[in-house]
């Protein structure tokens, strides 16, 4: 009976059994993200995304680039299920996110961190409050929240700034707060939608380096940008989205993936 209940719950909320950052062992061998023939229409007969096929392995760092309006944000929104595809499948850890019920979407998102161009931090909240909210959602004990927020702030270079009001921080610092919020739950996948768009070139490079450091700890990173200065100084895998079609412009392996690859070989 209990097994049946648990099975039913699993079917209704396929990501509910995930603890943030803790995937099922059998899923670890699967690619973290697979898109198969994905179409998205906002206007009839004019698809924004046309048959996207994409596989991202665990631990990869992937750049997605393309001109404004090419569908980069739409592609990312499909992954974190802000919108649903009109055709095709999107598999996250082997499970089709496009078929999720509305009640299951939060459980999917607890396994992803999302960083936006406009930071989306609460200006009236403190740095600590902005980061801890991601763990309060998981209903973790306060002591654990405190220690994990402290670690996340240290990783993004904001150690000791927890009590500062976010509105008093610079743009780069606010983006670091947003990154800390995205990684504090130890997500399997980190999605960044033009995270350096509002920052000057030096800060943009700092933020990119921060994402790379996070990637080195095993988190898969999908980084959408149209900033060519960033793309030219790094050798990560590069995907170009143009007219709704995705093409592989450059193969690459992040340091972490290279190490893992060498270990398994």
């Amino acid at each position, binding site marked *: 009976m209990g097994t049946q209940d648990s099975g039913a719950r699993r079917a209704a909320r396929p990501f509910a059994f995930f603890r943030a950052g803790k995937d099922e062992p059998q899923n670890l061998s699967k690619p973290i993200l697979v898109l198969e023939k994905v179409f998205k229409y906002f206007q009839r007969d004019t698809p924004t995304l046309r048959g996207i096929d994409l596989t991202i392995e665990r631990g990869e760092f992937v750049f997605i680039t393309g001109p404004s309006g090419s569908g980069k944000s739409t592609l990312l929104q499909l992954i974190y299920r802000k919108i649903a595809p009109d055709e095709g499948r999107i598999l996250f850890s082997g499970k089709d996110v496009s078929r999720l019920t*509305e009640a299951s979407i939060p459980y999917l*998102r*607890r396994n992803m961190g999302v960083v936006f161009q406009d930071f*989306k931090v609460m200006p*009236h909240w403190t740095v600590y*409050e902005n980061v801890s909210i991601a763990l*309060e*959602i998981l209903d973790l004990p306060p002591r654990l929240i405190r220690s994990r927020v402290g670690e996340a702030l240290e990783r993004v270079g904001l150690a000791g700034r927890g009590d500062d009001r976010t509105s008093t921080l610079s743009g780069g610092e606010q983006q670091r707060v947003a990154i800390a*919020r995205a990684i504090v*739950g130890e997500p399997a996948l980190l999605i960044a939608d033009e995270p350096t768009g509002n920052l000057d070139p030096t800060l943009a490079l700092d933020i990119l380096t921060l994402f790379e450091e996070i990637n080195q700890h095993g988190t898969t990173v999908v980084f959408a940008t149209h900033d060519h200065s960033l793309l030219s100084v790094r050798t990560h895998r590069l995907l170009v989205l143009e007219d709704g079609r995705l093409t592989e412009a450059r193969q690459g392996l992040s340091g972490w993936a290279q190490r893992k690859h060498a270990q398994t070989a």
Partner: protein
Amino acid sequence: MDFKGAYVRALRGVREDVRLYLVAISSLTVAFLCLGGALLGVANLTALSERWGRSDRMSIYLRDDAPEVDVSRLTMALQEHPAVAKANYNSAEVSRARFLDGNSALRDLPRSAFPATIELELKPNAHPKALTQIAESVAAQRSVVEEVDTYRSWFERIAALIGAGRTLVIVLASLVLACVMAIVANTIRLAVASRREEIEVLKMCGATNAFVRAPFVLEGTAQGLCAALLSLGVLALAFFALRAEVGGALRSFLDMQPVFLSPLVMLGLLVAGGAVGAAGSALSVRRYIRV
């Protein structure tokens, strides 16, 4: 559901924009004040209708040839009736003198125009049907009684007028209630709209709808309760101040003391305030929760 967490987040929400919160409470207070005023009107018209719609007086017109012994026996019997407060016998001369008091134009009316009467007044707590029962039993004594007038038709007309007024006030109260709902919904929607980015962030972090909604519903409930409580306070202050000023005049004119809202209605208003605030918040959040 983590109520403590929701409470902390609700407090944070209030702290974030105290001014908007106070503006919302003020708007809701004004709306509830209108509703409370309308309910107060209904309560007083109901009391007036109950007071005036019930006749507690009776005039028993006696036959000219009624034996004095029978008249005395009837008067005594009425005085001893448990529902009767007063039963006074007025001879034909007394009735004539009272009627003509200062009215010389009617002095030529014949003596027979003023029969002897027994003026009867019921106790305030008498059963509403007591007057009818007494009138029927008195009217049966045809050897003594010519006619019994309970003034019922007059009271019924007054009661009908008051009833119409009460219906009008109830309709107005319903309209006010609809306005209150609209004001509450718009005020809370404004407050929620100002925090839509917070909702979006929570949803992106994996918050369930219940988690997002909880602090807003708590805030809405608190706003509604505060507004209902404030409006009751203002209404009570105004009512008792006004009653001190014009209560005496109203009592002598309408023979009743103005009444305030009953505890049950006050409790209902408070509960309605909280419920409307909670429902308004929940509905307003629903618009932004689909992220």
